[in-house]
């Protein structure tokens, strides 16, 4: 026993020396993850989910009356309703977990926002009057299928109007699409209300904890903007021989740039902790500020966020179609891609490390 006593004394001494000598200004502040989760749920996720559901419902009812009696005025109303519903949906794309991933035919994101739409398959479905959306042909439904059916590339609304007047099947299909969208988003909204409690309670940092789910989808969402919404139409995905402007998101309506902007903005809001009404909420930034080395990282990250926002504002004018921009000024779009790429490291390598978040989905088996 005396040996152990000696060891114990040695141990206590060395620890004492170590923590007095080596430590330079480490904070003993503790971050309250529970309040971050609560704040994110209450101020960002739930209000945005409610709005996305409300806008989708509005689109649904606009479409119902339009399909019943197609008019030019009705079409414009429907198009506006679609735009605001789609942009509202973008605000919940990074939350594709929990209630978002429980669908029988895949997660919410792939069910309502797969692009590019498969126009051939959509036309075929219209002819066959196939409005069963419980399958894996996700590129025949959702916002981007409506994008194809409701908008003309050259803004020729009379052509669209005519297509509905001449084909009641088309109207039926569009109505079914809107119904499907509305019920999916309504479902997400109501399920979140009950999931909220579980989300806040699951306040650890291990795989499967709310913070790791939020983080994983946050990063995935950011990467999706880069890889699919920008790199893909630029022809930067492996194997693409030319740019593919027709692969932009929302190709027909042409609000692709607006969508990119909205997507980047919600990512930033989650990170900074900005509520739907632009009030202060608690985000990753606040969390980072309580851990060692976090301050430097938040400063770097914010700098990059500003650069990205500035570049998008300068290079992606919302007045111009992204698909055209890619053809006429690809260098502009590439600048945006470059800035998106530069942000990856801050979110992907540095942040998870500092926060000690487990970024795999399942726990490990040792080390």
């Amino acid at each position, binding site marked *: 026993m005396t040996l152990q006593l000696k060891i114990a004394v040695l141990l206590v001494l060395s620890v004492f020396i170590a923590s007095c000598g080596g430590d330079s200004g*480490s904070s003993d502040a503790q971050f309250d993850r529970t309040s971050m989760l609560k704040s994110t749920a209450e101020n960002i996720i739930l209000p945005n989910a409610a709005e996305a559901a409300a806008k989708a419902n509005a689109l649904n009812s606009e479409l119902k009356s339009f399909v019943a009696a197609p008019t030019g005025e009705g079409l414009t109303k429907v198009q506006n309703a679609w735009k605001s519903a789609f942009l509202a949906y973008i605000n919940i794309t990074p939350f594709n977990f929990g209630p978002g991933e429980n669908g029988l035919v895949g997660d919410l994101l792939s069910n309502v926002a797969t692009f590019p739409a498969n126009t051939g398959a959509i036309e075929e479905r219209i002819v066959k009057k196939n409005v069963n959306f419980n399958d894996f042909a996700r590129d025949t439904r959702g916002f981007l299928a409506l994008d194809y059916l409701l908008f003309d590339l050259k803004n020729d609304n009379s052509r669209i109007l005519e297509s509905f007047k001449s084909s009641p099947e088309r109207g039926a299909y569009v109505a079914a699409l809107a119904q499907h969208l509305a019920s999916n988003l309504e479902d997400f909204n109501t399920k979140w209300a009950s999931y909220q409690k579980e989300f806040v309670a699951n306040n650890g940092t291990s795989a499967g904890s709310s913070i790791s789910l939020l983080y994983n989808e946050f990063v995935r969402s950011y990467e999706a903007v880069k890889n699919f919404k920008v790199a893909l139409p630029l022809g930067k995905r492996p194997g693409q021989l030319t740019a593919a402007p027709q692969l932009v998101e929302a190709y027909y309506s042409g609000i692709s740039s607006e969508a990119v902007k909205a997507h980047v903005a919600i990512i930033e809001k989650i990170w900074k902790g900005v509520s739907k009404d632009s009030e202060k909420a608690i985000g990753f930034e606040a969390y980072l500020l309580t851990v060692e080395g976090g301050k430097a990282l938040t400063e770097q990250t914010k700098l990059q966020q500003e650069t990205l926002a500035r570049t998008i504002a300068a290079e992606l004018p919302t007045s111009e179609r992204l698909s055209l921009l890619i053809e006429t000024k690809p260098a502009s779009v590439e600048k945006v891609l470059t800035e998106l*790429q530069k942000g990856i490291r801050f979110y992907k390598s540095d942040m998870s*490390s500092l926060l000690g978040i487990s970024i795999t989905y399942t726990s490990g088996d040792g080390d």
Partner: protein
Amino acid sequence: MFACWEKILNMAQKPVSIAPLVIFRVLFGAAMTLSTCRFWTLGWIHEHFIQPKFMFKYFGFGWVEVAPSWVMYLIHAIMILSSLGILFGFFYRFFTILFFILFTYIFLLDATYYLNHYYFVCLMTFILCFLPANAFFAIDIYLNPQKIQKTVPFWCIFIIQFQLAVTYIYAGLVKINYDWLFLALPLKIWLPAQDKIPIIGFIFKYSFVAYLFSWVGMLYDLSIVLWLSLKKTKNVAYLIVILFHILTGILFQIGIFPLVMIFCTTIFLDANLHKKILAIFITTFYFIKLKIEDIKKNVVCRKYFAANNFFFISIGFYIIAQILIPLRFLFYDESIFWTDEGYRFSWRVMLAEKSGSVTFYITDKQKKRTWIVDNRDFLTIHQEKQMAIQPDFILQYAHFLYDSYKKNKNDELEIKVESFLSINGRASKLYIDSTLNLASLEETFSQKNWVLNSKN
């Protein structure tokens, strides 16, 4: 020289009680059964071996390929069966060899799943193949009583103790570094994240706790084998082993392995204690007819397993190899934390918090196009995370991309990478030379000069 060798041989062959070895066999078998069942029920067979489109290989083991999914499940079923064979000492030799082969096969399939503990299990089962751990308290003996042994040569116990010593002592030695001891990193990052653990969670917000754990962890790893070996301290030391591994098991996501270590270290306990425990079992389970008394009159120590010079020289080589392999990082200039050269098979257990981000660019020189790869097209999140922190994986993946996208013979592809690495929460730095065409580089054991200097 020869006298010395003789001495060693005599010591190695000195008969000692078989009881510690038998209990080790039972516990190890039980741990393997549990571990394999757990692996299966968590859906990891699918997730680790069936889902991934690309698997990372160990150097020299590129030929190990994954089997069709039903075979993978069958293999795990056989592993469960084999581990039960080890536990009950039933066709022990056959099942131990089978388990060793299958476990090692699974281990070699995807190097991103490398864990020191898996390697430890590989080595342990390999060792068990040579030991007469079924010569007592085993179904094999029930069926074939004349094979009973009350003792084994000392080396049978020693080799297990040695393996544990290597594991612990190296795990302790590598903790003697500035970050671990004087900055309490990575524990200062990991522990505060555990603040929601019941009862003790609140202490992790204090940074002195991270220091305490760092130093205790280092001292524990370095010296626990010594305390376990000394007669006076071994019982207390074993209680500390239990406490330590339960605590790390709660704190970190390390699955079944605290249990494995708690089980394995019983080999250090006093043989009389093992005998007593065996005696309780044997008298409790009446169907094991062999009473301690029968055994006492029955058995002499038989020289086990043609224990000739060649065999002992082989053991000597094994021992030297186990001591040298973890030291190979000394041959590389750069810090092992940064390059990871020499990381595997070196008992660097939970030593640093590393994470990275890697983006690959493919340039088709003829078509004059540069593409960006979405790693998730091919890799799981786990694989991507592991690849980002280990240069040889980055290189392997670059070659995979090259092969995947080289459609025609004449295609001239260049694979470049932009990768950032962050260690222990420090700001990330550029990791791999982003100007190099990785497709033209080959993996070797020599210094990777395409990994940038960490001080840049």
